[in-house]
Each structure stands twice: as structure tokens, then as C-alpha cells.
């Protein structure tokens, strides 16, 4: 059996791949056709195939493990045409997760996870060891779950076992067909997050099919939007799909709220932060007052001795003399982490009824402030990362955000 450490991630290449069905077959509900699909999935990335039903996304997926054979064109894995491979051996090297999970009801969870190692003829002890390792990896205590049967698990637990099973032989490529489609939204969200965390460690190449554009945007490093008839409409990173849809179909498919969707793709760290006038507790009030009056933004941000924000003092409330006391400050703005998404940041600001969020680092020290203006600038249709940065700087400086203290 192959050395596990040697197996990284695979590169998958579709070269002018088409699949057509005879009219009679299509009328009986054949899977979607695919029309001249060419795309390359780089190693270690999640590529999401998304589109309405009948767009050929599942067909495209199943052609990679040859459950469906293309009518024309080639599919290469790491440069080698899969048509030349024994289909069964090929499949044992590709992880496969389907929506209904398809756990074998007559086998224990441990045996289910070890299906592919068993097919590959691993020794029994190693199969067991691997199953336990994977159950732990997907967050199921092996001691509790190994000897249970699928009927004894919840939908979310079964889905996790499905992912563990697909990972069993450490495949460099995984195919996931609506893997989180059969569970309720809350469980789905959790499974998605867990999977992204797992993928950050494993860095497999993953082809992921969904009809849900939100899931595609969340999960994909690259998103392939497909149209009924099997046409690839756009293949790009999610931010680009949202910012610059290639066609009317893509724009419609991502929805009228695509601007808002982009908010969840961008994190606070990606925006230029607005500087702000600050002073520490105990600093002389006079100098701080002068600096605040000179700044277009009429508030002073008071920090503690370790540069952690305490709250705002409006310029009119800064004493003319003496030292600044913590009691003068009003803590109104939400504290944001650099990892916070713009969507969450905006939501927190709206909840607090303020226009400014304070961005702090891991130790709670001030990094800068984020304004609603800056978020709005990031949303502008033409915005690319550089534009976002400069627009933020300009917008932030010219505006006078209503922040906290006297609200």
C-alpha cells in the first residue's frame, strides 16, 4: 500500500469534457448533460460545482471516478488520463461522499469507515486503528461510536462518518456530492465549519457539488457556476463571482443580495483600518483635547495602560485640565477581531446602533477602527482589494461617523 506521507493532493483537469444522453434516456430523467467543460482544479483546493438541477454538476463529478463515462473529452488526474485506469482501482484512490451518506446499515461504524482499507487488503489491526483515528478526527469518540450501527446515529453524525469513510485511505482527491444537503441548517453550518477546519489541516483536492450558492461561496476556493445544459458559466474564486458575475445567469443565480454575500467573504483584516485619536488613562487632558479638536473625527478613544480600548469621550466632554479618568469614557462600539467577517462586523455595529467598530488584536490591544463607510466602500461593485483599501482611507477620513459617546 502507498506510503501515506507521500500522498499529497491531486490536480484534476477537465479537457473539453462532454456528456450527452439520447433523447429517450433524457426524457426518463437521465442526469444532466455536460457541454465542453474545461477547467483545472489546483492541488489542495476546494472547487465547488454549483448550479440549478439539471446543470450537469453531479454528472461532471461522477465522471471523475468514472461512475459516468464522458461522451468525449478527457479528464486528467495529476496529468494522467483516467480513461486508461482500471475504474475500480481509480475509485479506491478517490474519496467519495454522497448526500444520503450511504453507510452500510449491517456494518458497525468502525467497519463502515474501514471499507476502502478493507478493499485494499490492509491488515485488520491497521484497519481498526485507522477507523478510530478518523472517527476522532471528525469529532466522534471512537470508544462510543466504533461498535454502533448507522441506524443509531443522528443525521449529522452519519454525515461525519461519511466524511471519515471517504478519508480512510488518505486519498489525494475527494468527491463530495451535496455532502451536507440532507441535514438541517444548523447542523449543516456546523459540519461546514468543521470540514473547513479539517481541510485547512488535510489540504486535499476537493470537488464539491451543491445547488446552494451560499454553500458554494462559503466552501469554495474556486466556484464553477454551471447552467442547465451543462455549460460552465464562470469559474473563479467566490469573491470574483460575487463582485463580477460573468453573465446575467450568474448574476441571477448568485442573487440580488450578492453584495451582502460578499460581506461574509471579507474579513476585517483585509480592509485598511481608520486611525483614531487615542489617549491613555491618566494622560493629561489638555493635550488629548487639543489633538481631538484638530481631528475631523470628534471623539477620543481612551485606552488602558496596556493599550486596550475602554471607550469614547466626545470632544465636548474632554476636560480642559487634569488627567483623563476611565469614568469619562463610554464603551459603545463593538470590539472586532481581525478574523471577524464584514458581515458579522456590520451586524454588530447595527446591533449596537453605532457606525464604528473598534478592531483589537488577540491580546485586546487597539489596532484601529472600522467604519460603516469603509464597509460600504468595500461593497462597491468595482472594488478589488487595492481599491477597497484606498477607498476606505478616503471615505474614513472625510466622513464624521456618529460614534457612541453622545448617542
Amino acid at each position, binding site marked *: 500500500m502507498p506510503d501515506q506521507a507521500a500522498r499529497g493532493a491531486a490536480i484534476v483537469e477537465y479537457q473539453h469534457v462532454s456528456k450527452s444522453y439520447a433523447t429517450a434516456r433524457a426524457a426518463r430523467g437521465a442526469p444532466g448533460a455536460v457541454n465542453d467543460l474545461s477547467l483545472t482544479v489546483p492541488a489542495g483546493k476546494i472547487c465547488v460545482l454549483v448550479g440549478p438541477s439539471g446543470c450537469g454538476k453531479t454528472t461532471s463529478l461522477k465522471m471523475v471516478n468514472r461512475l459516468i463515462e464522458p461522451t468525449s473529452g478527457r479528464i486528467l488526474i495529476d496529468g494522467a488520463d483516467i480513461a486508461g485506469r482500471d475504474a475500480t482501482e481509480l475509485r479506491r484512490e478517490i474519496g*467519495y461522499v454522497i448526500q444520503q451518506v450511504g453507510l*452500510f446499515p449491517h*456494518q458497525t461504524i468502525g467497519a463502515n469507515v474501514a471499507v476502502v482499507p478493507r478493499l485494499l487488503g490492509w491488515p485488520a489491526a491497521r484497519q481498526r486503528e485507522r477507523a478510530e483515528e478518523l472517527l476522532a478526527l471528525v*469529532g466522534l469518540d471512537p470508544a462510543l461510536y466504533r461498535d454502533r450501527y*448507522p441506524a443509531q446515529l443522528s443525521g449529522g453524525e452519519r454525515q461525519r462518518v461519511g466524511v471519515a469513510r471517504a478519508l480512510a485511505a488518505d486519498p489525494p482527491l475527494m468527491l463530495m456530492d451535496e455532502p451536507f444537503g440532507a441535514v438541517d441548517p444548523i447542523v449543516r453550518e456546523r459540519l461546514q*465549519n468543521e470540514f473547513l477546519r479539517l481541510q485547512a489541516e488535510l489540504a486535499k483536492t476537493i470537488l464539491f457539488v451543491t445547488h446552494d450558492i451560499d454553500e458554494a461561496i462559503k466552501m469554495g476556493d474556486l466556484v464553477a457556476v454551471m447552467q442547465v445544459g451543462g455549460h460552465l458559466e464562470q469559474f473563479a474564486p467566490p469573491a470574483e463571482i460575487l463582485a463580477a458575475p460573468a453573465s446575467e445567469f450568474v448574476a441571477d443565480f448568485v442573487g440580488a443580495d450578492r453584495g451582502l454575500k460578499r460581506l461574509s467573504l471579507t474579513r476585517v483584516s483585509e480592509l485598511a483600518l481608520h486611525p483614531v485619536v487615542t489617549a491613555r488613562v491618566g494622560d493629561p487632558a489638555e493635550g488629548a483635547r487639543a489633538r481631538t479638536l484638530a481631528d475631523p473625527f470628534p471623539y477620543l478613544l481612551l485606552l488602558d495602560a496596556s493599550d486596550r480600548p475602554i471607550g469614547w469621550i466626545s470632544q465636548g466632554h474632554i476636560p480642559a485640565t487634569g488627567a483623563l479618568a476611565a469614568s469619562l469614557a463610554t464603551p459603545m462600539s463593538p470590539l472586532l477581531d481581525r478574523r471577524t467577517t464584514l458581515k458579522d462586523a456590520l451586524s454588530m455595529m447595527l446591533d449596537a446602533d453605532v457606525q464604528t467598530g473598534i478592531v483589537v488584536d488577540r491580546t485586546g490591544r487597539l489596532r484601529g477602527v472600522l467604519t460603516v463607510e469603509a464597509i460600504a466602500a468595500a461593497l462597491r461593485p468595482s472594488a478589488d482589494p487595492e481599491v477597497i483599501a484606498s477607498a476606505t482611507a478616503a471615505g474614513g477620513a472625510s466622513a464624521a461617523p456618529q460614534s457612541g459617546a453622545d448617542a
Partner: protein
Amino acid sequence: MNLVTETAAWLTNPAQWAGQSGIPNRLLEHVLIASISLGIALLLALPAGLAIGHTGRGAAVAAGVANLGRSLPSLAVIAIAIPVTVLVDPVLGGTVLPTLVAMVVLAIPPILVNAYTGIAEVDRDLVEAGRGMGMREREILAGIELPVALPVVLGGVRSAAVQIVATATLGAIFGSGGLGRFLVDGIAQNDDGQVFGGVVLVAGLAIATEVAVGLLERLARSPGLRAPGARPATELAPPSPLRGA
């Protein structure tokens, strides 16, 4: 003497428990002929049923064969078989073989139908998952479809076995052995005790067969398949140690 005491007297008579025409020997003959015909029927119907269920091809033909087999009266099959089997073996062809043929014909429909419907009804997602993971067709059939469909498949075997045990009785009319001899001979000799003693034995054997195959069915069924559709009351759903981001 009433029927009950007559039957009891016949069954407890030590003379019935020895010799070539004693109960043990007749029972053995009965079980033997039933087992042989069940074995032949299994050999013919089970692989065909599994193949039809797995591939989905030939289901219409199988249904036709099954219906034909079911609509033929056993007695008629035995009678029709005699001229043919006599040609095969002049001695056995007139006695045991026609009964054997009739029992096989009778046993094929339930085995065939249950095998192919059982396999065909296995959730296609399981098959798809297995194939997608690199199981060969034979591995899918033996490793997924058959174990999952086993209760249904064995259900067919059970009803075939019970019908065979009951039908083997008829063979005595045409000169084969088995427990049917007591019925045929008892009627001829106007011996009610023997007739009903034979009835009791046949019924007992049929029930024992039913229980035995049922037991086998329960032993062979995976614990994961018990109480289909129902989820056990003791359900564990501990929160995942991997918290959502």
C-alpha cells in the same frame, strides 16, 4: 375410541417407532426428500434471483416463471413428471423423482421472487456508495446487497421450505416414502389413528421447519438491521469536540 385417543394410541405404539415403515424412517425419508428438493431449488432460483435483483434485468421473465410455478397444482406436476422421470430412471422415476420435481417447481417461485425483490429493494444509495468507493459488482452483491436483503431472501426460503415439507406428503400417493405414507396407507386400511398420526407428524415437521429457518434468519441478520426503520431508544448525541467556527 375417539379420534384423539386413537391417534395418541397409534403414535405411542412402540411398533410405529421401528422398522422400514416406522415413524423415524419415514421422518428421515421426508426430511431427506424435502432437503434435496430445497437444495436443488436454491441452486436454481437463488443465483438467478440475486443476479436479476442486482442487474435489474430479467425481472419480467422471473415474475412470469414464478407465477407459472405458483399456478400449477402440485398433484398435476407430479402426474406430468412421471412419464418424463420414468425415462430418466425406471425405478426412481415412478416413485421419488416426480415428487422431487414437483417440490422443486413449487419451491422456486418464493425463493426467486424474494431474492430478486429483496436485492432490488436495497437502497440504491448504498450500492452507489459502494461502487463509488471501488467495490466490484460481486463485492457489492455479496458485501452490501445480500446482507441487507437477507431477511427478505431468507423469508422466501422459509416459505419454500414449509411448502416443500407439506407437499412431500403428496408423493406417497405415487409411491414415494415419507410421512405421507401414513396418510395414504391409513386411508387404505381405514385406520384413522394412522391417518391423523401422520397429519400430526407432517404438521409438526412443517412448524419445526418454519421455526428453524426463522431462527436462522434471526441469527444471520445483522444487529444493525434489527427493527427496520426504528431508531433505538438509547440514542447518543454528544456534542462534537470540534466547535463551530
